[in-house]
């Protein structure tokens, strides 16, 4: 999130509350979880790291609303490096996979049941994402983000289908043998 806040400042120096509003607008319903405090905590960290400078505007001191944040040259370099970066968040599937394997091996739980429960959970997430996407006006940036979330969840659900097939097959083999 630090990188995102930095990049937001690349256009022009900005107030903290202004930054918060811009982030919320881009994130749409997903930004609702973010409170202004998080922004100031992040900005404070960036300032300590020498990536932004805080210029106090006129009026009462120490009121966050009165602070305007701007990028330092180091901050600008960091933004450029961030944009050039090709790293991608990895979905962590190994943990769930190991959970199924462990449950089956120790006969702690039925892996098929675990898959079903997980599936229900993901479906609920997907439902929320879908409903949020439906509520977005066509062409909104947040809609695009929700589309990505939904596609991710869809991929996960399909993987769970594959898990279910595999584990119910394994079950049959055990019973048959």
């Amino acid at each position, binding site marked *: *999130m*630090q990188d995102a806040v930095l990049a937001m400042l690349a256009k022009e120096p900005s107030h903290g509350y202004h930054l918060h509003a811009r982030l919320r607008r881009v*994130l749409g*319903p*997903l930004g*609702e*979880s*973010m409170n202004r405090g*998080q922004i100031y*905590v*992040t900005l404070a*960290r960036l300032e300590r790291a020498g990536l932004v400078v805080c210029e106090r505007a006129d009026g009462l001191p120490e009121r966050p609303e009165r602070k305007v944040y701007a990028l330092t040259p180091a901050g600008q370099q960091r933004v450029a490096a961030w944009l050039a970066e090709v790293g991608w*968040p990895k979905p962590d599937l190994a943990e769930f996979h190991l959970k199924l394997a462990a449950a089956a091996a120790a006969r702690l739980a039925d892996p098929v049941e675990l898959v*079903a429960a997980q*599936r*229900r959970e993901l*479906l*609920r*997430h*997907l*439902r*929320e*994402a*879908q*409903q*949020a*996407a*439906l509520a977005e006006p*066509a062409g909104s940036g947040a809609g695009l*983000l929700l*589309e990505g*979330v*939904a596609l*991710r*969840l*869809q991929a996960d*659900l*399909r993987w769970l289908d594959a898990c279910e097939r595999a584990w119910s097959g394994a079950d049959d083999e055990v019973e048959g043998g």
Partner: protein
Amino acid sequence: MNVSSAVVRARGLVRTHGRGPGRVRAVDEVDLEVPQGQTLAVMGPSGCGKSTLLHLLGGLERPTGGEVWMDGRRIDTLSERALARMRRRSVGFVFQAFHLVEELTAAENVELPALLAGRSRRQARRRASLLLERVGLADRARHLPSRLSGGQRQRVAVARALVNDPLVVFADEPTGNLDTAATLDVLRIFEDLRAAGQTLVIVTHDERVAATADRLISMRDGMFVDDTRLAGTGTGTGTGTGTGTGTGWLGGLGGLIGLEG
């Protein structure tokens, strides 16, 4: 579940295709109740029997065994003529391939079931323009289906399914031929219908379509393998998180997009 509130009900429903050793049970001993106002999605891989189930519930196919009830009336024993009347009055269909009449305009397609049900031309026309307005195609009323996009065609088909105020709308892969944007258009209409208390049964293999339902049934080899209550008006025992309020986002999706500082 309160029987009187079930618009569609099936008991021990069986449908086999073919004979002898090649015989396939497309639908195998299925029990189902769809209460008034519920949006039910049926999911499964192709060939699992979900389309057959839909045809059985809508009276397009006759079951090999079991019973189908529609609005408290048993329909699997009805004559073809009575079935047709039942469809006219109580059921609307939406298909993957749209199945619009190619030589009729959008408005004329929507009017068709109303005319079949014996409404006057004026009533049919008024109802059709209202519904086309509702699906956002008022300005395309005089277009032939060939001049409409896939999504627009499907919206016309939805309007046509609604023209006789059906008790239940059956949709068979309604977004199967549509791109993402058109899918969202159709899902938005379904969402409006759901809000208005329309009973909907959607057969789909698209998780994203299924996820918009109140309840999701998974089918494999003609049988129900899972019945999940995602949310909604039903009185079931599902463990849903409620109907998508702001708090849901924090726990669920906020984490998914990795907003932690």
